[in-house]
């Protein structure tokens, strides 16, 4: 007879009509560590957000110690004893550790609105001792390393005496030593009888920590069982075993022989190490890597947004001397960044202004730099048409009013207007619905067919398999493998990314 602390019963969730969770049912045993794995978009985070009160469920229910658990907000879940240690840390870096612990409920002196500093201090020290963190509670969080911050998060969770602790990718920003320290603490919490849900892409870690493992795929629970029943191999197989339908357009062209971009022995301390890469005209080269693998950082360096220590970057056979986006764009480069809100769009500007921004030099006269507005307007209209951007009036509607997919198309359109010879795209389908995804894939295929070299960075392996001519696997700043289309095998590539080498 097992002692169940938490039970998911047919939990369902859809966002804007897209099903994210389609009826999840499983039990979590009291005092156990459950490893939750699955690809990006499999529904892990959504399930945990429902448990943590961040989003409500559409149907089904959760039972916590036999009682219905239906948190209205994260605070509600807090009170129910569920502590969520987030991927991106939720600490106020400008405040001290102690202030972070008590931010929502400072101990006061009597009924007076004065803080009881003595009590804050002693209690904060107790919490820090629980996670073996030997720093003063008066230290500002901004002065801590990522690993120490993670431990402060854990201590904060302990401070509310949580029954269930959720760790969502806790090790992405930690060093190996910090990770080991975190695991020791998780072990200790485990021995103390806490229930833990541990989400990670790093399957080795899941194998080390978990008592039982649950695998999600496309919003459904594929399998849940004791760790002994799994191998890393079988976990990956369970994560990816999907029947491929027509999720990706057929490629209409083959890569050319001419080299468009070459990267030689590129290194930057702490970011990437001796990267070699060749990108041909008309080729779609995928870069697959997990969070923190250095894939986006590499793109930033190639585009000139960041500098590097050693190595060489050659565009059309010419070494690039001084890196800057302005020069690189002139040389024919374009870059769809992973954060379209922060780096891609001017939210308050019209769609037309957004589309025009990068191509302005090509649409203005010499010397005075008067913008040829009618030519530009024609090009804007054409781009809106070709990419079928859904917008009322491209010259009046602001970018912020568009859906995610259409915003992404605006960013793509902005770069297409510069007629690039090298296009770098970083996570172009993040936060984009399924229909728009297919359209974006088609656009990428069309761009490549026109002879443009495409560097396609993604953490979704499937879309790379569906679209690329070749895939490079990156991890910890290094190229871990290169696969031609004929060699494409989801398991082999994932294993390379997880550094589990094929036999």
């Amino acid at each position, binding site marked *: 007879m097992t002692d169940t602390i938490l039970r998911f019963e047919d939990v369902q969730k859809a966002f804007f009509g897209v099903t994210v969770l389609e009826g999840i049912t499983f039990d979590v045993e009291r005092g156990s560590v459950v490893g939750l794995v699955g690809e990006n978009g499999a529904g892990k985070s959504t399930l945990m957000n429902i448990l943590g009160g961040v989003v409500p469920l559409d149907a089904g229910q959760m039972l916590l110690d036999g009682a219905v658990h239906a948190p209205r907000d994260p605070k509600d879940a807090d009170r129910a004893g569920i502590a969520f240690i987030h991927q991106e840390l939720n600490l106020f870096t400008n405040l001290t550790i102690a202030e972070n612990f008590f931010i929502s409920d400072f101990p006061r002196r009597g009924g007076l609105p004065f803080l009881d500093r003595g009590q804050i201090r002693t209690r904060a020290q107790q919490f820090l001792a629980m996670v073996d963190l030997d720093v003063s509670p008066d230290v500002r969080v901004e002065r801590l390393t990522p690993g120490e911050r993670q431990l402060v998060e854990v201590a904060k969770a302990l401070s509310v005496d949580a029954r269930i602790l959720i760790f969502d990718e806790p090790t992405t920003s930690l060093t190996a030593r910090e990770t080991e320290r975190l695991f020791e603490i998780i072990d200790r919490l485990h021995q103390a009888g806490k229930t833990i849900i541990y989400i990670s892409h790093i399957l080795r870690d899941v194998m080390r920590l978990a008592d039982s493992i649950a695998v999600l795929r496309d919003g459904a629970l594929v399998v849940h069982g004791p760790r002994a029943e799994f191998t890393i191999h079988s976990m990956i197989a369970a994560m990816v075993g999907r029947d491929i339908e027509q999720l990706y357009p057929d490629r209409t062209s083959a890569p050319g022989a001419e080299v468009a971009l070459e990267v030689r022995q590129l290194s930057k301390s702490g970011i990437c190490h001796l990267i070699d890469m060749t990108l041909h005209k008309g080729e779609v080269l995928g870069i697959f890597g997990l969070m923190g693998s250095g894939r986006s950082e590499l793109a930033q360096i190639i*585009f000139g*947004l960041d500098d590097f220590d050693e190595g060489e970057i050659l565009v059309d056979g010419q070494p690039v001397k001084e890196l800057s*986006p*302005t020069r*690189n*764009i*002139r040389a024919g480069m374009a*870059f769809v*960044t992973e954060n379209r809100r*922060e*780096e*891609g*769009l*001017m*939210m*308050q*500007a019209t769609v037309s*202004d957004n589309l*025009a*921004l*990068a191509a*302005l*030099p090509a*649409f*203005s006269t010499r010397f*005075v*730099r*008067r*913008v040829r*507005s009618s030519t530009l307007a024609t090009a804007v209209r054409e781009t809106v048409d070709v990419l079928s951007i859904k917008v009322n009036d491209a010259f009046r509607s*602001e970018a912020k*009013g568009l859906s995610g997919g259409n915003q992404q198309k605006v960013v793509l359109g*902005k770069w297409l207007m510069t007629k690039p010879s090298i296009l770098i795209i970083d996570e172009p389908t993040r936060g984009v619905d399924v229909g728009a995804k297919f359209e974006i894939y088609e656009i990428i295929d069309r761009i490549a067919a026109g002879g443009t070299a495409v560097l396609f960075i993604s953490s979704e392996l499937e879309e790379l398999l569906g679209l690329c001519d070749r895939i490079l696997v990156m991890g910890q700043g290094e190229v871990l493998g290169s696969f031609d289309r004929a060699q494409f095998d989801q398991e082999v590539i994932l294993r390379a990314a997880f550094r589990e080498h094929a036999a």
Partner: protein
Amino acid sequence: MTALVQEPTLVMRLRALGRRVLLSEYLILYLCIALFAVLYLMVPRIASPYNIGSLLSNMWPLLVVAIGQTFVLIIAGIDLSQGAVISLTSVIGAAFIAQSANPIIFEKSPLWGVLLFENGAVLHDSVLGIPVAIGAMLVVGLLIGAFNGAAVAFARIPPFMVTLVTSMFFAALAIMLAKSENIIDLPDAFAAIGDEFGIGDEFAFFSVAMVMAVTLGVIAHLVLGRTMFGRWLYGIGNNPRAAVVSGVPVRRVIVLTYMFSGFCAAMASIIYTSRVDQGRPTLGEPFLLDIIAAVVIGGTSLAGGRGKIMWTFFGVIFLTLLGNALSMLNVPFFYVAIVKGSVILFAALIDVARRRILLQSA
């Protein structure tokens, strides 16, 4: 089911009209006309040719300097040093062309023996005097602007901080150079810049200052609306990071924008200096808030990304008209400040209301 489509009632029509007026680009111009009408009923003198002439002559220099401020606000910056630039360049300009200099006053000035001499300034009897003085003023404005811009773009110091510091620094320098005194006795030709002339004596509306302001205004308007540089300014104000990624040379544009702001301040200083007919080390001090107020009343956003020369023009008319009316009504100066403050607050409220309506209709 209830009927969703109703006959528009009078109230609804009025509300729709109100919205249209409130959202109109010309709102401030309408308010100017309304204000003028009301004032005309109270003090008919306001429409006299003499007063119109004085209104205009107050408007031109304010417009010139406000155009520079508009550019800076569009890239989400602010230039608090314009007042100081006006003061410093006034002193420097005068120190080239004063026809005489009193040794008792200026003997201890660092300018004594360099630019100022007992028998007048260094170029007091040269044909090149006025062009050189004007050139020097503009160069100083550009240099201070370049410093501001570089500190913002390269050292990444917040613009408020940078220009507050340069404002203090150069205002003090102006006073130090002139030993707290006005450099008087400028040549008549220089004083003529601010003078009005007209067809006969009746309608003396024209002046060199007007030509300067209108020319600058037209150029600035075209640059903002028609050139790549203008588009870049809005882009930087809207999302500087996206601008960098899109290949906009953001730092260079920032430096150029602050340089333009300093240039405009120096150009306004030429007009103001000519009108007071002396190099005055505190010349710009009272104008700083008027400058920013005029731009903001016009509708240019302090948050960047939004602004037009036409709007600034309306804001300048409004503020000048208000100041003129208050002085004609013999309102004591402390009430003037209170009224001006209230008007700026009102402008800010209108801006908030506009945004809300736009958000709802989006």
